[in-house]
């Protein structure tokens, strides 16, 4: 048996490199939905800091951000856009209410889409956020 040598998927590595260069708030999650990267604009928007080697589980993420839908109904971890994108294999858009770790309430539009490798493997998800205006 030859030991596999794969670390994070190259698609995730490239996406992280791109996200680190963009002004759009972006988070990356692994295929389980656990958060593995937050770019600087997303750190500011979500009030969330994640170390380079840290992982925040999707359960902890839902709790820490107190994620709700736009009616204020609490969302479970498997209703988060990144999880829905991973399970459906499609892009998902939702309006969310969150409370960042800085305590500030935010209304966000989130778009999540799966990262699928050339051989069809789901290697993670990308979520992009916009702070919502009252007009939507």
């Amino acid at each position, binding site marked *: 048996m030859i030991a596999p040598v*794969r670390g994070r998927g190259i698609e995730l590595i490239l996406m992280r490199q791109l996200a680190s260069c963009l002004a759009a708030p972006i988070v990356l999650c692994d295929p389980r939905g656990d958060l593995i990267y937050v770019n600087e604009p997303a750190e500011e928007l979500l009030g969330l800091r994640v170390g380079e080697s840290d992982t925040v589980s999707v359960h902890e993420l839902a709790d820490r951000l107190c994620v709700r839908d736009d009616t204020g109904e609490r969302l479970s971890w498997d209703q988060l856009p990144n999880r829905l994108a991973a399970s459906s294999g499609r892009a998902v858009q939702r309006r969310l209410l969150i409370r960042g770790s800085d305590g500030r309430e935010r209304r966000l539009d989130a778009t999540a889409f799966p990262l699928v490798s050339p051989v069809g493997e789901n290697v993670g998800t990308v979520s992009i956020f916009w702070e919502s205006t009252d007009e939507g």
Partner: protein
Amino acid sequence: MRVKLWGTRGSLATPGGDTMRYGGNTSCVEVRADDGTTIVLDAGTGLYRLSQALGPVERLDILLTHLHMDHIQGLGFFEPMFERGFDVHVWGPESSTLDLRGRLSRYLSPPLFPVRLRDFRCQLTLHDVMRLEGFRIGPLEISVAPVVHPGPTVGYRVREGSATLAYIPDHEPALGMDRLPEDPNWLSGWTLAADADLLIHDAQYTTEEYPEHVGWGHSSLEHVLEFATRARVKTLVPFHHDPGHSDAMLDAIFGHWLALRDLPFRIVPAMEGASFHLSSSPEQATATYL
């Protein structure tokens, strides 16, 4: 394990008086296990000279990192491909829409080349590698992983006993970054290169040249030194020399960095014809020139 460099140049073959020492042939590396099992890493123009010196082997495996011309151009001139019944296996990355056969056929067919893949008389077997994590060829354990470079591209890690060779000839791990990430999980190629006895790695550009070539899929020597330090390799072989770099320029480039840096590994710049013996003992790999 014995490793011999038959082609060290990147992008374009550059024969001539001012490239004779480092070499003008494109990427091709022969790896011979202690029992004689032979694999070839990439099929650049260096493969032509290897075919003259191959000697008797029963089977040959050619492992392609990607399908840019400087890594496949030797295939159509490799004599064993035309030997009836000779057992040749070619391994390389498929794409999301074409398998390796389909991708190789783009080059090995008119008008780019007069001989089609199906015209080779050898017993040819093609292996797509993107779904693989590892495979075995005789005593050699091969690991494969995608790396940062335009188009489907992989690197290989070859082990025999405790001897480890990492081969990543086209690689830009610093793409879009000011510095390489601290966490190796985010570093392209790290898992291939970690603790290797010998790392053969892209070092096409100087620090000054790199900003004009960001995204082209290659590294500056400065990036490679950092990458090799992170990977804790024992010997680094800077490889895939830019076609515009003469022997004198390469002497100056390598001399500059060797004088500046106190590095935790040995550097042996790739020269065509150089051989390395990787011992299964814990001693550092040694380099001898033929």
